[in-house]
């Protein structure tokens, strides 16, 4: 049995096939097409063509895709959203969609109502939700909205109001009407969580098109026996059913896949990953085999959100970065020849001096025609390499969590411009498959399970409660397809609810496990 991983990036759609022992059997790159779908089809066809694998023997198919990100950035195919904010009388001073780009609010028609509801910071009720009030708004919206978002004050502490309102919404709008609850999506900070929830609701149509398209493609290529998954941005997989509820979680799955793929190729669980592209490079941190999460608000399509995202640092340095010299001072990037490297860079007969040309000149890379860069003075080329080295060293240091030397894993097509030794780096890993690390990351993604419940420690002691939450999370993961006994706790969060009767505490546990039938 085999698994296939596909990662749709801005430039290329990569695909890789792995066997049960996690050996890379075949991999390929195909230029990403405007409709995405064609690129996926071509990549799947191409990666299979190089093998004699019967497509029916592929038991898992994983897709990491930028379709949701693109829809937000381009304001296309978005659903019309209605937002209910359960907060009255609080929060009227800043209404929903404040600070949003106008074209985005227009694209989703930006309906909202601030209704009674919400909790205080300690779990007390701020105000009670009102069934009649909720339902009358929904009746008025019926036929005008395509997706509903619900957010409540301190719902990350208590979610009962949001879930009750979701229930009422299904009664009014239909059992299948898409509803996004903020408690499932973001963390504390109302506006940012509200924004993330609205985006999730707006992506309803996009995710349905994406998942259907992927299933069709697989069928077309005779991959008929595979369980199908989408990659989320924490390095784990979701079933298509789950993905349809939480499309926003696919955003930034690309960098996550490349970090996870790098981890797998280098066999390291703690390292910094440097993914060098044509124009920019992304730095991420591997912590216990997963990407470190960002602790700050993240802007998606100019909208401020706070749902979990990998902590990525982008720098304007890549294989196509243009080298300048002004008054003896050398700069590299942020401008780049980008896609056009194969016609504009000197080694390819062009006239623009790029980072890649420099790497070729100093003998660090064998690309294009080295005789075309012989006219570059070697001393100058070495100075440029020195400059690139300093740029990377500073950025690597920014991502570090301690002063000790770290390991660095290089991936991506532009990796040749990175010098062999770097200050603060113990060892540099570079694998022959590094070019398709993201597709490999997609195919080795694990299954996660989450569980959340309010416990009363006077009845169930703390240790027992934590254990119970973890076991239930493991059960969730197994239901989603994880191998029994392979799950590991990756996150546990305790929130005391001081004013809740009997000093209750909310525990949130998250585990990840290996996919059933594919033990590494």
């Amino acid at each position, binding site marked *: 049995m085999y698994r296939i991983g596909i990662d749709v990036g801005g430039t290329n759609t990569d695909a890789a096939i792995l066997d049960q022992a996690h050996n890379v059997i075949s991999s390929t790159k195909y230029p990403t097409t405007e409709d995405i779908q064609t690129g996926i089809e071509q990549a799947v066809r191409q990666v299979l063509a190089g093998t004699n694998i019967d497509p029916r023997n592929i038991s898992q198919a994983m897709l990491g895709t930028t379709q949701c990100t693109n829809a937000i950035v381009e304001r296309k195919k978005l659903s019309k959203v209605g937002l209910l904010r359960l*907060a*009255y*009388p*609080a*929060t*009227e*001073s*800043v*209404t929903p969609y*404040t*600070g949003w780009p106008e074209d985005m609010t227009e694209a989703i028609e930006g309906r909202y109502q601030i209704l009674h509801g*919400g909790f*205080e*910071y*300690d779990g*007390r009720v*701020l*105000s009670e939700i009102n069934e009649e009030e909720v339902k009358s708004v929904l009746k008025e919206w019926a036929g005008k909205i395509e997706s509903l978002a619900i957010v409540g*004050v*301190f719902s990350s502490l208590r979610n009962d109001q949001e879930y009750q309102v979701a229930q009422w919404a299904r009664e009014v709008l239909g059992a299948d009407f898409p509803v996004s609850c903020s408690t499932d999506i973001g963390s*504390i*900070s*109302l*506006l940012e969580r509200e924004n993330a929830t609205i985006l999730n609701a707006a992506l309803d149509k996009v995710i349905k098109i994406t998942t259907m398209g992927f299933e069709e493609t697989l069928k077309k290529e005779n991959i008929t026996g595979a369980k199908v998954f989408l990659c989320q941005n924490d390095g784990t997989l979701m079933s298509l059913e789950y993905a349809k509820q939480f499309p926003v979680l696919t955003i930034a799955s690309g960098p996550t896949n490349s970090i996870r793929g790098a981890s797998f190729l280098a066999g390291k669980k703690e390292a910094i990953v440097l993914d060098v592209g044509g124009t920019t490079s992304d730095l991420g941190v591997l912590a216990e085999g997963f990407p470190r999460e960002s*602790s*700050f*608000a993240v802007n998606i399509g100019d909208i*401020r959100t706070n749902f979990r995202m990998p902590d990525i640092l982008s720098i304007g340095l890549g294989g196509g970065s243009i080298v300048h010299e002004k008054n003896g001072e050398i700069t590299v990037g942020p401008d780049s020849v980008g896609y056009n490297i194969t016609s504009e860079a000197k080694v390819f007969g062009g006239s623009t001096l790029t980072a890649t040309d420099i790497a070729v000149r100093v003998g660090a890379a064998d690309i294009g025609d080295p005789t075309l860069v012989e006219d570059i003075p070697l001393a100058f080329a070495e100075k440029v390499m020195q400059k690139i080295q300093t740029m990377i060293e500073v950025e690597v*240091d*920014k*991502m*570090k*969590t*301690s*002063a000790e030397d770290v390991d660095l894993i290089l991936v991506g097509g532009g990796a040749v411009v990175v010098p062999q030794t770097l200050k603060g780096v113990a060892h540099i890993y570079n694998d022959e498959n590094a070019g398709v690390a993201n597709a490999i990351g997609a195919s080795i993604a694990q299954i996660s399970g989450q569980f959340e419940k309010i416990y009363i420690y006077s009845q169930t002691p703390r240790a027992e409660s934590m254990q119970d939450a973890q076991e239930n999370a493991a059960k969730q993961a197994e239901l989603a397809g994880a191998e029994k006994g392979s799950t590991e706790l990756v996150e546990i969060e305790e929130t005391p609810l001081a004013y809740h009767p009997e000093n209750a505490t909310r525990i949130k546990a998250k585990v990840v496990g290996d996919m059933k039938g594919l033990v590494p």
Partner: protein
Amino acid sequence: MRLLNEEAIENIAIGAAFLGCGGGGDPYIGKMMALSAIKKHGPVTLLSVDEIEEDEVFIPAAMMGAPSVSTEKFPKGDEFQRAFHKMAHYLGVEKITGTFPMEAGGVNSMIPIVVAATEGLPLIDCDGMGRAFPELQMTTFHLGGKTISPTAITDEKGNIGLLETADNQWMERLARVMTVEMGGSAQVSLYPSTGKDLKQYGIQNIVTLSEKIGRIINQRSADLKESLAELLTTIDGKQLFEGKIVDMLRTTEKGFNFGQVKLEGLNEDQHSELVIHFQNENLLAEKDGQYVTMTPDLISIVDMETLVPVTTEALKYGKRVRIIASPSDDKWRTDFGIETVGPRYFGYDVDYRPLEEL
């Protein structure tokens, strides 16, 4: 007199966060409130203290409590309308002439702008701290012998408390308890003042100063050194240190963040180490074991490259920052001032020495 528009608000928010010395909350939610208010009601009139009459009555507007609560549950918007009305009635005055900020900080620089916009009142260009401090009696009005009473405290639910306390410390204690009961965050109007009080006790032109600082940061030129120099001239300050955060020590006690942040030097400070002691706000800076700045003088932590101020909640390992110090207003540098907000009040066993002498 001049008008504050959206651009001015963007600048004031960031400049006030700089003067907030790590405290005063994240400017984002405050800024959103102010932008919403002027979008709805139009720009706000800013008056200098020279443009007001001695016998007119002014009430400041501020938010009290945990900044993390206000990012989740922010005000309804009419709280101060009710508080101002009750206060005017209680004071027996017909009209509140204007409002002003009590402290410079991400949130509390913005609240009076919201009030000024919604109530159609002018904003007066002065405050009671010139920076941020954690307690209600830590103001230059207190130093001038002005009483904090009566204080109005209110929430979005409609609760209003009008408090008269034995002294200014009692106000801090009682209002703090009410804030917790109101949901961890409340709106307060304190130190009701006359135009004469503002001229005498207020720290002047603080809104304009915040705006200037904010403009330098927001419109940072390509030459960082130039912007930094302009910033230092504007605040009459100096850069204490350039470095990277290598250790954080944090505890929460009675609703306040206590801690230390340790920095390892970079560039010119390569072989030095700097420790900042904070309690919500940055209070002391210690370079290689020697104190280099002490409260009430200002210690601001800014991002190394963007100069954007960093609040104590956002400090984290590995962040590269500049530490900038500037002298506090002379009103603080008296015996009573130092007793109220000097190192010893915050529990540090050291006598205050001005920045210029260290």
